[in-house]
């Protein structure tokens, strides 16, 4: 699904040495994977996430999504690409504070070319277990519930890839577990998930963990699927 080849991101500053946030990253992520990208702060993991999400442009290298060179698209085409193929989940939720849960979830449908199927927003909220909170404002919801609304928003256009940047960073451990369970369930249904975190416990829920250090891939390991499956049986 995703092919990254020698991706570099360099920030040039007028009065200091350039910073190489990414210094040649090559990766492949297949459809259906659940990948955690870990690293310390400043390692470049967020930059990598932004480039995969086309929120940022690489300085050099190639990025293909389903064989399409998305880094080379113009801004409008990239926006359409994000709308159709990607769903974003942020650490700070980034919900419109004065809009209801349903209005927040339906926001991506505004930018869809074709008329979206009726009730898509409602179904997305049902899928994250918030069927009874459609008309609540974010301020009337708990942190975990707000992040579920954000996940429903990410899912409303049925994207192939879900990108989550520290999705549990603002949550208490209980809510964090619920959110991770939700990600696992979504992954079981076939959705590809890429999650950025600095938290080993969160990364432990993914099936593949890529560690970024100083702008490079430091390790890339696929966990024992049997162990993950076993863990699921034990619950």
């Amino acid at each position: 699904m995703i092919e990254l080849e020698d991706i570099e991101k360099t920030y040039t500053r007028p009065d200091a040495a350039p910073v190489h946030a990414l210094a040649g990253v090559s990766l492949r992520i297949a459809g259906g994977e659940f990948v955690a990208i870990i690293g310390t702060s400043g390692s470049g993991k967020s930059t990598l996430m932004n480039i995969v999400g086309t929120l940022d442009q690489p300085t050099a290298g190639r990025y293909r999504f389903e064989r399409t060179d998305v880094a080379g698209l113009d801004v409008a085409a990239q926006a359409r690409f994000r709308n159709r193929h990607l769903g974003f989940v942020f650490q700070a939720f980034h919900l419109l504070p004065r809009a209801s849960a349903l209005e927040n979830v339906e926001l991506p449908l505004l930018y869809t070319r074709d008329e979206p199927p009726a009730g898509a927003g409602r179904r997305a909220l049902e899928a994250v277990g918030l069927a009874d909170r459609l008309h609540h404002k974010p301020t009337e919801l708990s942190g975990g519930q707000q992040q579920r609304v954000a996940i429903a928003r990410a899912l409303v256009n049925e994207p192939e890839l879900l990108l989550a940047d520290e999705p549990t960073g603002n949550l208490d451990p209980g809510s964090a577990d619920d959110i991770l369970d939700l990600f696992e369930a979504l992954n079981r249904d076939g959705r590809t998930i890429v999650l950025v975190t600095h938290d080993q416990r969160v990364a432990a829920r993914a099936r593949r963990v890529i560690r970024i250090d100083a702008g490079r891939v430091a390790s890339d390991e696929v966990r024992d699927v049997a162990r993950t499956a076993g863990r699921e049986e034990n619950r």
Partner: protein
Amino acid sequence: MNASHLLRDSLRSLGRHRLRSTSIMLGSLVGVAALTFVLDIGQGIRRKILLTVQQIFGDSSVVVVAGGMQLVDGPRPDAARLTIDDIAAAAAAVPAVVAWDPQQVQIASVRRAGNTATARVLGQSERAEKVWARTVSRGRFFDASDVQRRERVALVGETLVRDLFGGADPLGAEIMVDAVPFTVVGVLERFGTDLHGMDRDNEIVVPVSTLMRRLANVDTISVAKLLIADPAQNATAAAQIREALRSRHALLQGQPDDFTLLTPTEVRQLLGKMQRIVTLYLPLASVVVLLVAGLIAATLMAGAVNARVAEIGVRRAIGARPADIARQFVAESAFTMLGGGLLGILLGSAAAQLVARRLDLGAVLSLRVALIGLALALITGLLAGVVPALRAARLRPVDALR
């Protein structure tokens, strides 16, 4: 993003930011209300002026006012020199004059039984009926012999019929004008109010000779109107009348007139200058108000962009193109100004209607004015939104989400 999505999303966004929306709407409301008001009233006043000029001058005439220069206010030097004989001589000397009427005026208190009123008493000749084109609706106009014998006969306006007689038939009744008894022989046709807002139905017309001798005790008149046969001759006739009067008053060359000639053309020009204030400068002032409202809207929209950076980032992430973001902010600004403009039209129209009723301007509301107001509000809103919107559109998603 299609148009109906844009509309719905913008309206929702306005609802979510009520304080800002209200402030922008308020500016637009005041500007458009002021514009609607002055344009509507201006049109009403223009119509009223034309109507009044027509009422005073008819198709073709010259009005002589005693005293020189100052038409509007200020002293009229030598105001007390114009006599009936002066006008008679001028009319005789100018063949184009077909009829003329002298007039003297006095404010008097009028009593009948227990009722008292203050009215304008006009002394006129029997020819006033034709020259001023104002006759009676009931009873009779006084005739030449009434004027000659200084009869104490009076024609009363409808306002006085109401105030003194309680609406009952006044014909044949006796009224006291200052201390002089008069017999009511006719009721004047309705006139309405004039340019100054004066009620021309609160008037009494009596023979000019009676007024001069028995009420005012003067030898002079204040105004005379001379009808001219043909509008094309008006200017020539006015010049001839002026010469005749100057020679009657023995004015030397270089001495100013001690009377003022008014012709319909001159009066229209003069009123046109005053009109410009109403129809040009006042609307301009309200357009300035609207511009200020636009500046306020632009500032508030710029603030809104700053306050909603994260929202812009999210929208970009979920598929908004830079153009969608720009359109959103332009639309929010335009819809808010338009909404304020709609309310402004209602307010301005209501105020115009109220004032028009008081000034007796007739119907003043116009669809064209309403559309101009709306269009200006919309354009101002669009322009006010452009700069903030472009700034919002240029934000890079990574920066906006940081």
